[in-house]
């Protein structure tokens, strides 16, 4: 068989599938985003950047965007450092039962988000849930706490779930990264009289730069795509206070058959990820090589 024919035969199936269901839809999203369109009939109502202007004038969209940004900020400031701490705590070979503990910490990551959302909705239940139990115990009387029913606290409650679900994944990344820290280096630092904290900041963290770079990247991109957990816990409610970009896309694009507007929202998500990626490649990843 000729080489060209062989290459064609091997690549075509993957190429076609990828083209048809990934590339073409992404390009179409860009195309639809400048129209007002219900998904049926010809694309006639060209609105230019109108969808984008409209979007940034909508309070709910801005809430959604802000919620995504809050997840990014909280993940970077809280979740990743705690995951790193977990990795140092249980990821070392000398820790008894290390594998079992890793298994327990990591387990939430492989569960369906939808199941997790429902489980936590149960835990947060205002009638009999954990917050109510704790509050009643502390106050000595019956105090009902409805975290998910409050526009003020619902998002925090959801963030706790996100924190719990994804922390194991980052911990595992860090544990893998810890293997790259030479034992001798650590021992030498200790002999030289470095404190534990100094060892962490001056030996371990610099050696794990690449792992941390990847973990931050996955965390940020992941944060802009949160959907299932929020959906299971309240579909963006109460009163749209927990809306994220993707639930917004679903609620205001898909459900209302506003395909032009929804595509514009998708393009915004895409641009955020793209810009972040380019910036990150240029200033962060490049330097670590």
């Amino acid at each position, binding site marked *: *068989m000729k080489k060209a024919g062989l290459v064609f035969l091997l690549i075509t199936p993957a190429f076609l599938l990828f083209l048809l269901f990934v590339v073409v839809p992404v390009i179409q999203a860009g195309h639809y985003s400048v129209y007002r369109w219900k998904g049926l009939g010809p694309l006639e109502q060209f609105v230019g950047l109108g969808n984008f202007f409209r979007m940034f004038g909508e309070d709910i969209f801005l809430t959604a965007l802000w919620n995504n940004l809050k997840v990014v900020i909280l993940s970077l400031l809280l979740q990743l450092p705690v995951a790193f701490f977990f990795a140092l705590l249980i990821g070392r070979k000398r820790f008894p039962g290390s594998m079992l503990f890793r298994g327990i910490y990591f387990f939430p990551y492989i569960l369906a988000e939808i199941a997790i959302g429902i489980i936590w909705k149960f835990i947060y239940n205002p009638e009999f849930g954990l917050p109510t139990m704790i509050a009643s115990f502390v106050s000595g009387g019956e105090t009902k706490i409805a975290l998910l029913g409050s526009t003020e606290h619902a998002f925090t409650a959801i963030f706790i779930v996100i924190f719990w679900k994804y922390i194991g994944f980052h911990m595992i990344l860090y544990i893998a990264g810890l293997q790259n820290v030479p034992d001798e280096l650590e021992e030498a630092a200790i002999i030289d009289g470095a404190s534990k904290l100094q060892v962490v900041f001056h030996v371990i963290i610099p050696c794990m730069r690449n792992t941390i770079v990847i973990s931050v990247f996955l965390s940020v991109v992941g944060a802009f795509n949160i*959907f299932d957990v929020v959906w299971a816990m309240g579909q963006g409610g109460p009163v749209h206070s927990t809306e994220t970009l993707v639930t917004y896309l679903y609620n205001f694009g898909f459900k209302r058959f506003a395909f032009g507007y929804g595509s514009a929202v998708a393009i915004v998500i895409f641009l955020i990820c793209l810009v972040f990626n380019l910036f990150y490649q240029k200033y962060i990843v490049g330097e670590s090589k």
Partner: protein
Amino acid sequence: MKFLLGFFIALIMFFPMYAVIICSVKTNGQVLSDPFGIPHPFDLTAFGLVLGKSGEFWGFLYNSIVIAVSTIVIVDLFAMAAGIALSRIRFKGRPLIYNFFIMGMLFPITVAVLPLYLQLRDLGLLGTQGGVILAEAAFGLPMAIFLFTGFFKDIPQELQDACQMDGGGMFTFFFKIVIPISRPVVATVSIITFIQSWNQFLFPLLVLDDSSKFTIPLGIMQFQGQFTTGWNQVMAFITISIIPMAAFYFSAQRYIVAGLTAGAVKG
């Protein structure tokens, strides 16, 4: 001290799982009055209702298995074929095609979801499991091609040359050498694809409308939405749906962890 702290955190991490399992073996009355305590009486009615009643659960399970297995087969076959071409055969435009696929890892599924829905509608795949399978497989390809290509690149060129010297062509090389040694990377790709497919919610939500075609995640959502359903039944439903994943996880923890972090660490 360290151990105690690790143990205490483990208890917190495990608490939600404990709550689900413990509530699935209670009466609904006890779930409401004492959700986190020890079950008394120990009651398996919820499991009976979930597993028996109209057989809905078995349908969801069957659908999830069909979709996951088909997706895994497509992703492995297509990505393996493409990976061989992209790593072992020199041809014009190879880096271009490779980057074309890899680019797919940059943007999330959600970006394409609305046009994808219309695409599936135009192809007559809306409401079919085929639509879910093809879409999931397409989005799984970039990572799989990345892993396969990377793995095949590391096979020494001498092996390939030796095959050619013996008169066998590319095909001998594939079947005698590449396929037998690629078991670990096939396992990695299959594990990643399985977990993504099994837990996938947004695609099936968009594509499937008839509950007889629902997967387990859609089934859970629907089941807890029926207001006649007691919490103990919801918990039993979730517990049973977790069992396949938990069994898979604890029997192959090492490979799963390696598989899920492989893409990240190598990237």
